[in-house]
C-alpha cells in the first residue's frame, strides 16, 4: 500500500518544477486561500438559494451540519495526529520537488482534503451539482497538494474519507443540533437572513 502510495506520489510530483506556468497554477490551487474560499462560498450559495421556506429550512440545516462536521473533523484530525504522525514527503525523502512552504504537522490525514470534502459532502446533501462542484474542487486541491510535494495520495484519500465520514456521523446524530439550528435560524431571521 505504502509502496503504491509512494509510486503514485513520485509520478505526480515529477510534474512539478518543469514548467513555471504549471508550477504557478499548482501554487494557486494548493495554497490555503484559493480553493478553500471557493468551497466556503458553496455554503453561502446553499444558505441563500432556497426558494421556499421548506427548502431554506433544509438548506440551513445542511449548512449547520457542515460547519459542525468541520469542527468535529478538525478535532478528530488533531487527535489522529497525536496517535500517528506521518512525515511529509519532502522530509522523509530526498529529491521531492516542493512548491509550497514546509508544513510541520502530520502528513496523514490531509487537513485540506478533510475540509474540502466536508464542504463537498455537506453541499451534496442538498444539491447534486453543488456537491459535484465541491468534489471537483476537492479533487483539484488534493491533486495540487500531491504535485506540490506536501502530501502523499493516501493522505488525501484519508482526509477525504475523514471529511465525508464526519459529515455522515453528524447527520446521523443531528437531533441534538435541532435546538442549535433553531437558535441560529432565529438569530439570522431577526436580520431577515433565514
Amino acid at each position: 500500500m505504502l509502496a503504491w502510495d509512494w509510486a503514485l506520489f513520485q509520478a505526480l510530483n515529477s510534474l512539478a518544477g518543469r514548467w513555471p506556468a504549471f508550477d504557478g497554477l499548482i501554487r494557486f490551487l494548493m495554497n490555503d486561500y484559493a480553493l478553500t474560499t471557493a468551497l466556503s462560498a458553496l455554503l453561502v450559495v446553499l444558505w441563500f438559494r432556497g426558494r421556499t421556506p421548506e427548502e431554506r429550512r433544509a438548506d440551513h440545516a445542511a449548512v449547520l451540519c457542515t460547519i459542525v462536521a468541520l469542527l468535529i473533523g478538525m478535532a478528530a484530525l488533531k487527535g489522529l495526529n497525536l496517535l500517528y504522525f506521518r512525515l511529509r514527503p519532502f522530509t522523509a525523502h530526498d529529491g521531492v520537488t516542493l512548491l509550497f512552504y514546509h508544513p510541520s504537522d502530520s502528513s496523514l490525514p490531509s487537513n485540506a482534503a478533510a475540509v474540502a470534502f466536508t464542504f463537498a459532502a455537506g453541499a451534496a446533501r442538498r444539491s447534486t451539482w453543488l456537491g459535484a462542484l465541491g468534489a471537483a474542487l476537492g479533487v483539484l486541491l488534493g491533486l495540487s497538494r500531491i504535485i506540490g510535494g506536501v502530501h502523499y495520495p493516501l493522505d488525501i484519500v484519508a482526509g477525504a474519507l475523514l471529511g465525508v465520514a464526519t459529515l455522515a456521523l453528524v447527520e446521523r446524530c443531528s437531533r441534538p443540533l435541532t435546538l442549535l439550528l433553531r437558535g441560529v435560524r432565529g438569530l439570522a431571521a431577526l436580520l431577515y437572513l433565514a
Partner: protein
Amino acid sequence: MLKFVSTYLALSYLAFAALVSAGVLQVLAAWRALAGLALFDYRRRPAWRHACGPLLIALGYVWFFATRRELITPGPAGAELTILFGGGVALALAVTLPAAAILRPYRPQATSTGPEAMQAHPARLAPGEATLLQDAAQSQPGPAICLLPDPAAPREPLLDLADRLARRGWLVLVPAWGEALQRYPDALALVPAAMAFLSRHPLADANRLAVAGVGLGADLALRAAAEDRSIRAVVALAPLWEPANARPSLGLLAEMTYPEALRWGLRGRRGRLLDGLASTQALPRIAPRPALVLYGGDDAVVPLSEVRTRLQTAELRTMPGVGHLSLAASPEAAANVAQWLDDNL
C-alpha cells in the same frame, strides 16, 4: 488563540472574502431573482448583467493573488480563516443590502391597461378612505366586490385587478388600510363598512357581493366572509394564515429590498393581526359559499405544502413562476380571479 500571523494578510483576506461573497450574492440574485440582493435587474437581457457576480469573484481572485506575495508562506490557521471568511460574508451583506435598496432594480411596474373608460371616485367609509371603480357605461345594478390591499404593499397592482373587474361590469371598492386599522380587533371594522357602502350603492346588486384580498388583506377577507353571510364569494390572494409566516425571513428578500422587508412586518403588528384574524379557523365557516385561494408557485413567504393540507373547503390554484408579492400584479392571476368571480357569482 487567534494570531492571524500578519494583520495585513488577514485584512487582505477579509477584503478578498468580501469581494468573492459579494460576487456570489450577485450570482444568487441573478439565478434566483432575489430583489433584496440584486444590484441589477437580472431578469432582463442583455446577458452581461449576469456577468456581474462572476466579474466580482474574478476581480477578488485577481486582486488577491496578483498583489499578495506571501501566499505560499504560513498564513492564518484554519479557524482564523473561517472567522475572516465569515467577516467577509458579513461585510458583503452590509454593502449589498443597502446598495440593492438604493438601486432597487426590481421596482414594481404599473401594469394598468389604462383606466380611461373606468370611473374612479374617492369614497368615504366610516373607518377611512376608499376608491370606488365602476364602468362609466354601467347603468344597471351588477356584482360588487371589496378588494382589500395588503397594508404594506403598493396598491397599484391591486388597482389593476380592480380595473379589470370594473371593465367586466363589477362595482369595485378598494378601501385604504390605514395605520389606525392595523390592529386587532380594529381591523374587523373595515369589511363591514365596505359591505354596507356597497349594498347601499345603486349600481350594486346586494345579492352578488364578494370580497377579495391580497396578503394580510386576504386573511381579513376570509375572516370577514366567515362572519358576514351577505358575502357570497371570497378570493384570497396569498393569505398568510399564521403569525409564523409574518416573521422576518429570507423569503421576503426574494421579493423586496431590505427596508421594504422591514416595513412589511409593520413593526410586529402583522403577526399580531394574523393571530387575531385566525383565518385558518375562519375558512371552514365560509363553506358552502365558493372560496378561491390563489398563490404564486414561487411564493417564498408561505409554505405551500402546509397550505395544501389546510385547504379542504376552498379551491386552491397556483400561478407558476409568480411570487408572493408579485401575485397581485400578475395579469394571469388577475384574469383567473376575474373569470372565477364571473363564474361563481
